[in-house]
């Protein structure tokens, strides 16, 4: 009997090719817009052209008169169904269709349903809306000014534009630590607004069947079960008569977590018309109206001792939330997990305050490839760490080495209450420094400077909390953040696995099968994975915040183990020994005293349906719900070398080295793909990708000519390295990884450019480091702020 080779069957650690790619790269995916139902009508949304205005009147008569127009829906009509407003995931309210005012450019004002999308668009153009324009508020400074016009006059008791206030930490202890500091480093910066911009825009097809009362919605959602619960609660429809289906999704990046007015309108229109109604958002609609990210202002300090130890930290953060507080984040903390900042450093005490401001922009605060404000937190962390090292005259790598949490300190409690549980921080840093040739580079840099060339190196090290989350602290609409898996092993040993997560490109169909393979020894190719249909998938909370592997992936392990436990009983029966005498090796049970006598997992599967012992119920199917005991804490070290052209401010990336410790890697190829994607977005943020608004609140980035995403041409090459510290509480030792590079990467690029400018006295240039900002910094020797309303 030859042993089953785990890599050979596509188990844990196999760089198995992605099974979903066979259909994606041939154009055979099944996206929401590919679905066509008989009798389907088309909906188009009319959006506000202005950022802040009172609606004086809406005349829809010309739209109704167009042949082929079936319905013109306004906020007033939605209000009759109590649906002009809806609750957000952050306990605010958001307009579905504007009734009183429009509060951002691109806000939904009306929608038209017609026989085809052309006619629906014609209908939108025929609607006449009379606006009385109000002053637009485009940043927190304006919003929080004493005489600022009130944006949310719809909210009872709201007298200013403050959206929330929040505080954490030990203020008195922090103040004491600052009082005895040898040096204090201060840094102010703005993390600009960006848009996740998945290639596929949002869309839905709502199909209300008047005969059965059943509502089926095909839609672009990262979390279909949450949507079902939300629809049941908001529209007051019976949950068992709602079916949400997320078919293939062309990228999410957090953008497809929130509930958008377009979804709600398509549902309402379908109910009103008794016909399927499709809404497909266009690119401009997606860019100007759906969940933005970041847009956060930091002002903070580190208290330093002469020998390089950090004694304390404190910062204040203002967030620009847009017109509605609709952060799709499940933590109890108003500002997400921003207080995970500095978790990789051994700092005894700290204090954080935060405040959100309503502005006349689209709702912000989605977790764009990150866990709820962690990207901003880690960026500020690594920028002020670099500034502090410079202030102390210390090498930035050495400064980090002095302050990083040591391996023997785990489990380590941060001053804000997080528990980091594992890691080899110094080893990752040293591996990175070694890979990039740090000492040699420092010499090259000095020599190049003598010849007029500006080279620079940037480092970023961080740990971040991934995989929300445990039921103590995380929920959405009161539903805890567990996840689930259901495994059905068929008589011939093939299987179907369903989970409550929902892949948007992460490769669940490939990796989930690998976990089953690892636990049961069934070849991964024999396991089909299905997600996204609430009628068939077990209840789960969806895919975002790098939570799939930490939570749903753990559930896959656990359900596989339940199956194995039952298979053991079947094996004992087949082998005619007691269960205690049965041993397991991958894919096979055998008699402990006679290892050659064994049965395969496939033979057990057949027995489950045809030869079960007395008293054992038939079948080999089960499910598991997993409530993670803690978040997972991957660590990463990123290093970037750049050259800055001092005449134009253009900078080129010469090298990028990444060391990621995400615990055990299920599919190394997919992990590397995630890191490559994350680093690409990190480069994008630092170099070009940001969303600007003019003083009137017009969104300047409504298209891909003005909102820039890098192509393969600009994107530098990445050198990837790994360290493996298994997660102590995850069944297979895995940690989240999808967002690490996007979170930790940007600071490495920015630190590198500022290092190239180290002789100029410039301490900060806000992202993105556009050529004109870099040139301005070089020529003036002053910091360059990108805070809006921006000139450039």
């Amino acid at each position, binding site marked *: 009997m030859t042993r089953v080779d785990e890599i050979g069957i596509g188990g844990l650690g196999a760089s198995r090719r992605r099974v979903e790619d066979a259909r994606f790269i041939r154009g055979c995916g099944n996206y929401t817009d590919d679905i066509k139902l008989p009798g389907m009508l088309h909906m188009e949304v009319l959006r506000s052209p202005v950022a802040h205005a009172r609606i004086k009147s809406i005349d829809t008569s010309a739209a109704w008169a167009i042949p082929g127009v079936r319905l013109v829906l306004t906020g007033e009509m939605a209000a009759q169904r109590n649906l002009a407003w809806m609750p957000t995931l952050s306990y605010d309210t958001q307009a579905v269709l504007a009734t009183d005012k429009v509060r951002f450019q691109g806000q939904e004002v009306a929608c038209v349903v017609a026989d085809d999308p052309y006619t*629906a668009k014609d209908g939108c153009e025929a609607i006449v809306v009379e606006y009385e324009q109000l002053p637009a508020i485009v940043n927190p400074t304006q919003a929080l000014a004493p005489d600022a016009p009130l944006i949310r006059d719809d909210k009872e008791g709201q007298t200013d534009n403050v959206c929330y206030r929040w505080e954490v930490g030990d203020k008195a202890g922090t103040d004491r630590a600052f009082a005895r500091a040898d040096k204090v480093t201060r840094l102010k910066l703005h993390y600009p607004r960006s848009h996740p911009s998945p290639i596929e825009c949002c869309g839905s097809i709502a199909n209300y069947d008047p005969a059965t009362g059943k509502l089926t919605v095909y839609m672009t959602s990262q979390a279909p079960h949450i949507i079902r619960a939300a629809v049941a609660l908001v529209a007051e429809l019976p949950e068992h008569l709602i079916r949400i289906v997320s078919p293939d999704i062309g990228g999410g990046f957090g953008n497809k977590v929130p509930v958008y007015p377009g979804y709600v309108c398509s549902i309402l229109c379908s109910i009103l018309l008794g016909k399927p109604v499709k809404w497909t958002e266009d690119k401009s609609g997606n860019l100007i109206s759906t969940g933005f990210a970041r847009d956060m202002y930091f002002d903070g300090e580190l208290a330093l001792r002469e020998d390089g130890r950090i004694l304390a930290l404190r910062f204040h953060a203002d967030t620009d939330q847009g017109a509605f507080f609709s952060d799709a984040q499940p933590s109890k903390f108003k500002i997400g997990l921003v207080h995970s900042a500095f978790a990789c450093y051994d700092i005894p005490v700290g204090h954080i305050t935060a405040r959100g401001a309503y502005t006349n922009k689209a709702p912000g605060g989605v977790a764009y490839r990150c866990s709820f404000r962690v990207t901003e937190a880690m960026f500020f962390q690594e920028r002020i760490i670099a500034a502090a090292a410079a202030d102390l005259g210390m090498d930035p790598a050495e400064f980090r080495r002095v302050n990083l949490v040591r391996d023997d300190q785990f489990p380590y409690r941060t001053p804000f209450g997080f528990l980091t549980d594992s890691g080899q921080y110094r080893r990752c840093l040293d591996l990175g420094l070694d890979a990039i040739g740090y000492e040699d580079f420092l010499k090259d840099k000095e020599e190049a400077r003598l010849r007029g060339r500006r080279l620079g190196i940037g480092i970023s090290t961080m740990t971040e909390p991934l995989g929300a989350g445990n039921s103590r602290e995380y929920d959405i609409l009161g539903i805890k953040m567990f996840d689930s898996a259901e495994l059905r092993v068929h008589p011939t040993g093939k299987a179907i696995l369903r989970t409550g997560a929902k892949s948007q490109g992460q490769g669940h169909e490939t990796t989930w099968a690998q976990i089953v393979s690892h636990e049961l020894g069934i070849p991964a190719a024999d396991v089909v994975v299905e997600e996204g249909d609430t009628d068939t998938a077990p209840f789960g909370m969806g895919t975002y915040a790098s939570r799939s592997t930490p939570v749903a992936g753990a559930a896959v392990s656990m359900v596989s183990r339940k199956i194995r436990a039952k298979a053991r009983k079947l094996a004992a029966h087949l082998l005619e020994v007691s269960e205690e005498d049965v041993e397991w090796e991958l894919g096979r049970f055998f008699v402990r005293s006679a290892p050659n006598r064994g049965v395969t997992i496939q033979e057990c599967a057949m027995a489950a349906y045809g030869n079960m012992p007395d008293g054992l119920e038939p079948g080999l199917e089960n499910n598991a719900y997993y409530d993670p005991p803690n978040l997972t804490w991957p660590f990463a070290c990123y290093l970037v070398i750049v050259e800055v052209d001092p005449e134009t401010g253009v900078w080129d990336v010469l090298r990028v080295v990444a060391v990621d410790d995400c615990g055990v890697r299920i599919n190394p190829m997919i992990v590397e793909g995630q890191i490559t994607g994350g680093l690409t977005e990190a480069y994008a943020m630092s170099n070009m990708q940001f969303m600007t608004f003019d003083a009137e609140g017009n969104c300047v980035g409504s298209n891909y000519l003005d909102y820039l995403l890098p192509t393969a041409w600009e994107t530098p090459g990445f050198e990837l390295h790994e360290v493996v510290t298994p997660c102590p509480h995850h069944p297979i030792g895995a940690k989240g990884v999808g967002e690490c590079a996007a979170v930790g990467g940007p600071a490495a690029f920015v630190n590198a450019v500022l290092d190239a400018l180290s002789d100029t006295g410039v301490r900060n240039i806000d992202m993105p480091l556009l*050529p004109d900002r870099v040139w301005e910094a070089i020529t003036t020797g002053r910091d360059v702020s990108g805070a809006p309303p921006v000139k450039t």
Partner: protein
Amino acid sequence: MYPARFRYEAPRSLDEALALLAEHGDEAKVLAGGQSLIPMVKLRFASPELLVDINNVPGLGYHREAASGVLEIGALCRHVDLEFSDVLGDLRPTMAAAAPLIADPIVRNRGTLVGSLCHADPQGDWASVMLALDGEVVAVSAAGRRVIPVTEFVTGPFQNALRPGELAVEARVPVPRGVPLGRYLKLERRVGDFATVGVAVAVETSDGTVTRAGIALTGVGANNIKAVDAERVLVGSTLDRATIAESARLAAEAAKPRTDHRGSEAYKRHVVRTFVERALHPRPAVAA
């Protein structure tokens, strides 16, 4: 992205195309590469009643050197044809430098030089190249044929000198008389981005002395700008450092940039100056 209703015609001959244009005048739009027109129609920034697709008109895809030495570029010659052209050779270095910098490969596969001139986007690259080279556009209509210098062809942002019923069938570039020196430098944040600043330089020398100079600027004004003063100081010089610096200064002075999300006014002016110097010096100054 659903356009308003329009009629579509795809004539199979030049005469047929001209007849359609004569009949419909202003209401008709010519579709060649479509890389600007189609997005504008889909976004409903333009809602023409009739699209006259000239892609089936035979004999417009050429670019060739006429017996006179003049370079002739047909209305259906794609950017990609110029990018991989054997015709441009060493004689047309400015064009050879610009062709691979037009937009991105997908746009270059479909888009046309003549269409780009007609579209007259001030951020378009070809108009600067043609201004620097003193190019011309040949327009035909049912009434006849005329040749329009590029300096007169582009009349404003997104405006050209074509009369209703006229079709631009060809662009023409004169023969270089001396040793050509030419470059096109473009600062873009990403492939396919419009130029933050573009500088086209086309100089001809004879025995080391400049006999003809062309300098034109992209993205720094309401139109592509021909920097005539900057050109003038070069003629008769030996491209010495001081003259180059003076020309670069004058080019920056001719620029009329506006601050926007691609860069500040001062920055764009500075880049014009830097690019003119770099285009005329074979090596960047910092390497000295």
